[in-house]
Structure formats: structure tokens, C-alpha cells
């Protein structure tokens, strides 16, 4: 070691590093600092024996406490389920109307409904139930199968065109694709449906399509095109279009007869959860 250089003013040893005439001091650490450092090392060694720490070829060292955050979460989940059991029970026994009228139960149902909606329904209906092309908006006042609490509950339970025995079932024929109607007739019907919703349409086409509509469409959509909820037939006179509002959209629907599938939730979600979901969907704004 070379000779120690001592700074004149402070009397402290320097490291020998110098910048613009300023030398770095090598100020001694307090000894208790060293002791803290040693204490930390001792703590770390103790930690190995108490807590899970070292990875092994198969598994890891468990330590005396065998602490696991996963177990902790599972225990918390079990505790939560136990704490919720009373409310869940109440939800099971109450009717939908009773749930709506009981602020306490309603709050619980809304919270559960919102979470369950996010997990199960949002992929198709959107996180806010806003729907998308081919997937109904649940916020508006248009309901294919009914917007009352029990109707919503039933739709959730059995689904639409699902695998359930008593599913909501209806199928619009693919008038064009299956050759039921000629392309010109489909074009005329398109103009007719545009006319039904109060928009300007080709009068000659509308006249020609009157009989076509009565023969092919009125059975489900009604003579006035007002729809029929018992078969899930949409109202053609309003401003809502599941598969789009433009004449091209309407022609496409008549030609192909699109019909989406909503799965049955009866076997997957508990009756109480479906109740909560129904109350939540009803509250989105369109509930009847």
C-alpha cells in the first residue's frame, strides 16, 4: 500500500481520486453500520431456515413456516366465501323483485352481477353491455326475447340456439342463399324493410314486395313488421338493427338469415349468480 494521503482541512484520509483539485474523502463508516450489515446477513441465513427459499432440482426448500402466498390467497378466498354464504343464501331464496326492493341485497347482487358479467358476458356483449354487430346491446330498450327481470333470467339460463333442451329457439331462413327467393325479390324486400323503418325507399320496389313480405316474413315479424318476442323476431320499424341499418346490411340479413348463439348458463353458473346477473343486466338501463 502506498502512503496514506490525509486531507489537511478535515484530517480525513482521501481515496486519492481528484477532480479539479477537489479530493474525495474516505470518511470512515460508523461501526454500528457494519454491525447492521452483519445483522442483515445473519437475518438472511435465518430466513433460509424459516421461509421457503432455495430452489432444488425437484421443488424447493419449504422452511419451518412453509409459507406460501398461493395458500394464503386460497385461505382468503375460502374466508370470503364463508363470509358471503349468508348473502348468497338470501339471494337464492329471494325472488328477483325482492332482490330489487332490498337495498342491501341489491347492492350485493349488483356487485356480483357486475363481476360475473365481466367474466362471462363481456366477450360478446362488451364490458358495458354495449353489444356489437350481431351481439345485442343490453343498455337500450330493445329486447328480442323480453326485458323483464324473469325474461332476462330465463334467457341467461337457457341461452339462445344453445345446447339446452328448452333453449330460446328460432331461425330466420337464408332466403337468398338457400334459393327460397330470387335475388330481385330479396332486393325488393330490402327496400320494403327500409320503408318499414320510416326511411325513403323505392316506391315501386315497396309495392312489389308487399305480398312477398306477407308470405315470407309476417309469420314471425308480424304484418306491420313490429316483431314477435315469443320467437325472438326483431321489430323492423325501430332504429335498432342487430346486423346493421344500411340497405346492404338488411339485404345481407335477408339473404343469409344470420342467427347468433348465446350459450346456456344454467349448468355453469349457480341459480343465485344468474339472479344477480339478471338484476345487473336489468339495471343497465333498458330493463322493463
Amino acid at each position, binding site marked *: 500500500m502506498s502512503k496514506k494521503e490525509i486531507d489537511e482541512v*478535515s*484530517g*480525513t*484520509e482521501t481515496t486519492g481520486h481528484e477532480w479539479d483539485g477537489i479530493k474525495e474523502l474516505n470518511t*470512515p*463508516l*460508523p*461501526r*454500528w*453500520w*457494519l454491525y447492521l450489515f452483519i445483522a442483515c446477513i445473519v437475518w438472511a441465513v435465518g430466513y433460509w431456515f424459516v421461509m421457503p427459499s432455495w430452489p432444488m432440482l425437484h421443488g424447493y426448500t419449504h422452511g419451518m413456516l412453509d409459507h406460501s402466498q398461493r395458500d394464503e390467497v386460497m385461505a382468503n378466498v375460502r374466508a370470503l366465501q364463508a363470509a358471503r354464504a349468508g348473502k348468497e343464501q338470501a339471494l337464492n331464496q329471494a325472488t328477483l323483485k325482492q332482490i330489487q326492493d332490498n*337495498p342491501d341485497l341489491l347492492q350485493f347482487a349488483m356487485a356480483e352481477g357486475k363481476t360475473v358479467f365481466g367474466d362471462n358476458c363481456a366477450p360478446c356483449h*362488451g*364490458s*358495458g*353491455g*354495449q*353489444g356489437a354487430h350481431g351481439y345485442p*346491446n343490453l*343498455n*337500450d*330498450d*330493445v329486447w328480442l326475447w323480453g326485458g323483464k327481470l324473469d325474461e332476462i333470467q330465463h334467457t341467461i339460463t337457457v341461452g339462445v340456439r344453445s345446447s339446452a333442451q328448452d333453449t330460446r329457439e328460432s331461425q330466420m331462413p337464408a332466403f337468398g342463399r338457400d334459393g327460397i327467393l330470387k335475388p330481385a325479390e330479396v332486393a325488393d324486400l330490402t327496400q320494403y324493410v327500409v320503408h318499414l323503418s320510416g326511411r325513403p325507399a323505392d316506391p315501386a320496389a315497396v309495392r312489389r314486395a308487399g305480398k312477398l313480405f306477407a308470405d315470407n316474413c309476417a309469420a314471425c315479424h308480424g304484418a306491420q313488421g313490429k316483431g314477435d318476442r315469443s320467437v325472438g323476431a326483431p*321489430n323492423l320499424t*325501430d*332504429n*335498432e338493427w342487430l346486423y346493421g341499418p344500411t340497405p346492404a346490411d338488411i339485404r345481407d340479413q335477408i339473404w343469409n338469415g344470420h342467427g347468433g348463439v348465446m350459450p346456456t348458463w344454467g349448468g355453469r353458473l349457480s341459480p343465485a349468480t344468474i339472479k344477480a346477473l339478471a338484476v345487473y343486466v336489468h*339495471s343497465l*338501463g*333498458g330493463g322493463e
Partner: protein
Amino acid sequence: MVSVHTVIDRRDGAQQAAEGVARSDAQATNSAANRKLYKSRVPIYPREQDGLYRKIKWAMMAVTLSIYYLVPWVRWDRGPHAPNQAVLVDFAHERFYFFFIEIWPQEVYYITGLLILSAVSLFLINALFGRLWCGYSCPQTVWTDLFIWVETKIEGDRNARMKLAKAPWTAGKIAKRVSKHTIWLLFAVATGGAWVFYYNDAPTLLHELVTGTASVGNYAFIGILTFTTYTLGGMMREQVCTYMCPWPRIQAAMTDKEALCVTYAYDRGEPRGPHRKGDPWEGRGSCIDCNQCVAACPMGIDIRDGAQLECINCGLCIDACDDVMAKIGQPPRLIAYDTDANIHRRLVGKKPRFRFVRPRTILYAAVLGIVGAIMVYAFATRKSVEMDVLRDRNPNYVTLADGAVRNGYTIKLLNQANMPRDFQLSVGGLKTREVKVIGLESDAMPAVLHVDADKVRTVRVLVTVDKADLGTGGSRDINFTVTEPVHQESRQIESVFITGGAK
């Protein structure tokens, strides 16, 4: 210029610095002579010192400790709907109470303002009078002072304590040490105990603590604070200031030559050296090198080495030196609250003066004034009615069957008064078909919403506008007004109504 280190006639082993003044062999613990890679703590046995600054320190200790221990017990009547503790941090209910002030979590900016005021006050005080905070009101200083007082009462003054430290472990020494540490621990427990009272109703919690029914958290915090008070106040003492606290470093940048600091007037004191009765005072300084200033220092430093980060500016060396000056018939305040600039002024024959008005003090005072004014204004205009309006983003808007458009809003009504009140909510700025408050039977406007005392009520409101009233743009302005009829307070929040039409 006179060197600080000039010493005349330092006769080693001399017991007397002057007639009637004992020469202490106290040494600065940070003296340049013996430094190592790791520095062991040199125990400090500050001598009990009386004087002006000691009296101020006793008074400050009484005031600060009384505030700390007693404030949680002060009651403040807020009516039946709020706690009656004057100062309470109520985590469970997310409220902070300070006498007539009540702060909600979203108003934490008041605390930010308070912290800015505290910081700038610290800067200002530092620029004017040096480290008053460190010397008189810092908890570390106050509790260390208290613990040293306990130590002095049990083990005796400096020399007795030093002797006891070296003495073999007799029954007497054990008794003294045990009683000292016991009393320290009692103070430490009381300190931790007082802390938790700020977060709970004090009388209730005291009952719970004594009966063993308080929550684990309370006992844990008392334990932690007992430990820190005992170790930091009893064992670590000056080590906290020297090695742990950032403020000594920061204040070096905050101070300047005109800031008052505990200063050794080397222009008057040097050359220093022992003085025998009858010796002339001509040609030498007033400092008789008695080291009484070092012996009295709780930080164990020698103020004659100049301004240093270890110095907490408590002024006990001033008291010590003044006593000595009186004994040797010299004027007091060889060590005094003085400025570096004044020493230089005296050295060149100018009159010393104190420049309290300087650019930095003006700046600090201005910042203090502005922030203080903003705080006062904010408090004075604070309403007990608040409202937040959150428009639904998903979906942005809903088109109904007949072409009308509906927007949903989540409205939070804050009743920041300690009584339940009925708020009236109305919608304006747009011709609406229907305003439906979910959960209300009636759609009549204004909607009357009952909000519990000191609570938030969240309601969802659906606003429907007829197709004919939508207008041409993509959105329309809309406003929500909440009125509280009893106190005549209201809030209006602007929002937008998305029509979904052409942009």
C-alpha cells in the same frame, strides 16, 4: 487572519485553565487525530449546564412533549355524527380531523400544502437563525435531552457518569443502570402509546390497551415506537444526527454567511491558552482553552473547530462559555449566535450587523406567504357540498328504439357536513325527455337525494334526449346542479351528452 488552531502555551496536564476554572480533558469525538475505517462510537457524557439556552431548551421540551402526549386527549364536539377527538387520523372511516378542520382523502392537497409550508418554514428559519429546529424542537433532540436528563438524575453529572462507566459491576452500578434503562423504557412505551392515540379514540383505546382487547396493530406500533425511542434516544443519540438524518447535509446548502449560527468568535478568542490570575490579557485571546464548551456539548464536538454538520445549534456551549467568561471577568458571548460574516467584519474593523433581509429570506417568505394565502383561501371557500360526475364511457351512448339517445352518468354526492342532509339534483343545459335516477320511484326534477352525515352517496342517472332535440353535433353540453336548501350551498358540474350524431 488568525488561525483557529493557534494555541499559546498549552501546558499538557494543566488542571486549571485559569484561576477558579478547571480545565476539562474533554476531546472532540470527531477530532482529526484518530480516524479508522470503521469508527466506533465514542460515548459522550455532556455536563449538566445551566443558562439562558438551557432554560429555553427545558421550556421547549415541556411544550413539545406536552403537545405530543396530551393532544390526543383534547375533546372537540362535532355533534352526534362525528368523533369528538380534536386531532384524529381516522383511517377506518377515511377522515382526518384537526379541531374545526375535517379533511377527506381526496383533499390530501391540504396536507401537501402543509408539508410545503413546513419545509419552507424550515428553510426560512434556517436562513435567519440557523438550525433552531435541530437544537430545540426536533424529536430526536427532545427525547435525547430527556434521556440524558434521566441519566444525569440517576448516575450523576459528567464525571460521575464517566467514573461509573469504568467502574466494576457492583450491585450499586447494576441498580443504577437497571433503573435508568427502566425509566427510559417507560418513557419509550409512553411515546409509542401516545402515537396510537392519534389514530383511535384515545379513551376507548386506552381501555382496550389496558384490558388487552386492542388490535394487534396497536400493540405492534407501540412496540416499534418503544424500540425506536429507546434505541435512538438512549443509545444512538448524536449518531442519528450525524449519520442518519439528511437535514444536516441539506442545511449546509440552505445556510449562508449571514445566517445566525452558534459561532466561536475566533477573532476575539485566539490565540487561546490557559490564563493565570494576574497575567495580562493583552496579546492573547479570551479563550482560556478550558474545554467547558466541549464538555457541555451533547454532540461531543468542539465548536471552536468552526461550523460543522454535527452541530445542532442548541447553544449549551454558549451557556458553558458565558459561565467561564463571568468567572475570569471577560465579557460574555465568546461563543454566541453570530454570523460568519460578522467575524470577518470585526476582523477588518467594521461594525457587526445582522442582515435578516436578504434575497433568500425574501424568497422563502414570499413562498410561505403565497402558499399560506392559497391554503387559507381554499379553506375559506371550502364547501360542505361536493359532487363528481362521471359519464359512462362504455357504452358512450345508447340509441333507443324510437331514435332517442340516452347517456348514463355516475354521480357522487359528498355530504361534508356532520349532519344528514337532503340534496336536490337537477339537470340543465339541454332539453331532456327524461332524467331517471336509478333507485328513485319518482322521475320528478329536482330529484331529492338523502345523504347521510359525512358520507358519499353514489347514484346512477340516465338522461334521455328526444331525437328532435339532439342537434347536429356529436355532443351537447349538459350540466348537473346539486343544491342543499338548508345551508344554501350548491355545486354545478359541466359535462357532455354524446348524441352519436355526425361529428
